[in-house]
């Protein structure tokens, strides 16, 4: 399949699951913000987990399909359409040559994933196809997509022959079945995110520790793929202290001197020097990745053991989803 970008939108990048093994060189992980949606999109078109797909942030993106083929859109609902017909999400969709796919309006969440059967054909840089924006490497020429960019995919594992083209009456064909969608917060919905006390939790005063787990936080507009800046109760240390920089992780919540926390996301630096008040359970990262600027969230305290159990449970559910998708698409998608 070949694709041509018509409108670049706010921020559209090529991402896979991330760049691992290079943290000690100061190279960040990058990768899809909502990995769950990214993985499901790939499964729906017969791709392996690690295939590269597009992460579409907010609205305004459009592209043209230059060939017939299978695509899948998952993640946040950014009103995907082909010729004014809504494109169903969380299922494989057979599109025809010259179709124009647009993402015009944000309905739920804030990031959509577009997987194309075969996976996007971009070279691996340091073992990954993810875009590393700040270093200008990986993905599509190390940068967000521009109008006129022409992408292609590797050969698809799904056959085009399985579709009787005469049955496609409208702009595209989609089967009736769909994968169970991920948890995408509605606009304005307050979400609860589960988190564990962080390494320097005890260094915060009692009011701050209580406030952190009992008061709402708003996501400030200057949030991006690197981190979500929050606005909420002032978080203060019992006594001022200099911390030696140490490694951070996806979902680490650190608190700079201004007392307002930052959730570290996909494009976080490898090390951080601010105290870590908490750490988001990895099961809830996809939910956080879909929160819109201006949205609100609360943190609920859980233990490490609970976080591990929740993650294992979610992975078991996903394994079932994956198996069901596999059976469906092997038995010829329709």
């Amino acid at each position: 399949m070949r694709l041509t970008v018509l409108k670049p939108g706010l921020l559209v990048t090529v991402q896979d699951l991330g760049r691992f093994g290079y943290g000690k060189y100061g190279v960040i992980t990058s990768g899809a913000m909502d990995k769950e949606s990214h993985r499901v999109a790939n499964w729906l078109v017969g791709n392996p987990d690690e295939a590269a797909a597009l992460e579409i942030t907010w609205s305004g993106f459009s592209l043209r399909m230059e060939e017939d083929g299978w695509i899948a859109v998952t993640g946040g609902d950014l009103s995907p359409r082909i010729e004014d017909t809504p494109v169903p999400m969380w299922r494989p969709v057979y599109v025809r040559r010259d179709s124009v796919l647009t993402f015009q309006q944000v309905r739920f969440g804030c990031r959509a994933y577009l997987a194309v059967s075969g996976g996007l054909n971009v070279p691996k840089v340091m073992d990954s196809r993810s875009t590393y924006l700040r270093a200008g490497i990986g993905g599509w020429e190390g940068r967000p997509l521009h109008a006129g960019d022409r992408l292609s995919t590797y050969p698809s594992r799904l056959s085009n022959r399985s579709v009787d083209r005469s049955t496609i009456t409208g702009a595209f064909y989609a089967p009736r079945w769909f994968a169970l969608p991920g948890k995408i917060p509605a606009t304005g919905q307050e979400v609860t995110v589960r988190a564990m006390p962080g390494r320097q939790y005890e260094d915060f005063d009692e009011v701050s520790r209580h406030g952190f787990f009992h008061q709402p936080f708003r996501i400030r507009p200057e949030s991006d793929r690197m981190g979500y800046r929050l606005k909420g109760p002032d978080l203060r240390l019992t006594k001022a202290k200099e911390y030696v920089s140490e490694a951070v992780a996806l979902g680490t919540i650190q608190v700079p001197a201004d007392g307002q926390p930052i959730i570290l996301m996909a494009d976080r630096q490898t090390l951080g020097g601010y105290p870590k008040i908490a750490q988001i359970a990895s099961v809830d990262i996809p939910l956080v990745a879909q929160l819109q600027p201006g949205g609100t969230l609360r943190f609920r305290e859980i233990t490490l053991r609970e976080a591990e159990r929740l993650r294992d449970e979610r992975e078991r559910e996903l394994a079932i989803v994956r198996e069901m998708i596999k059976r469906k698409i092997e038995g010829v998608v329709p």
Partner: protein
Amino acid sequence: MSKSYSMHPLGDAAVLVQLGDGITDAVHQRVVDFTQRVERNPFRGFIECVPSFTTLSIYYDPLTVQKPDDSSSTFDYVCSLLQERFKADEENGKQRSIQEVVDIPVCYGGDYGPDLEIVAEHNGITADEVIRLHSGQDYLVYVIGFAPGFPYIGGVPERIAAPRKQTPRPRIPAGSVGIAGTQTGIYPIETPGGWQIIGRTPLALFRPDRQPPTLLQCGQYIRFRPIDRRNMID
């Protein structure tokens, strides 16, 4: 030196090992030693090590780690795997092996080092003295971080120490050599930054198409060497 260490969760997919408190060469050696122990003998599910000044963080894929039984904690199990690797005595690899010192040519001052005079003035010495002191000793690369290939280097002589700029510059060119407090560093890629820029190296510190992808690595020693402007062209 204390042989103790402590292990802490860094979320539900990483272990942070605390190996000391202060930024010293001895603690640094322990961090390097422990990193090598894990990297040479990785466990199933191991992703990577990220060493820092006094800690080492080990990232793992909880789905691939093979716990002996479903009811046990993945974190506890990974800690037990690490303990095995940390058990053997710490003697080997403890001394600084005779290492080459990485030569970093730097063109000081002028357009390449717009803050050289500021650093000189701040310390009441001449620009030439700043250059002489900055390039007059070996420095240990404690950690690589902040940007790909950016070395955190301490131990800059007090006589050339200088505070960060009040307002960070929006763009610092790749190769710029800066001073912040008693730290010195080299910007591998163009980024915003608040360090006092005293010169520039023509070397590429980040080279994503090579293995390893950075010129410098944690644990190496470097030495700055003053060069002429005309050596910057190539």
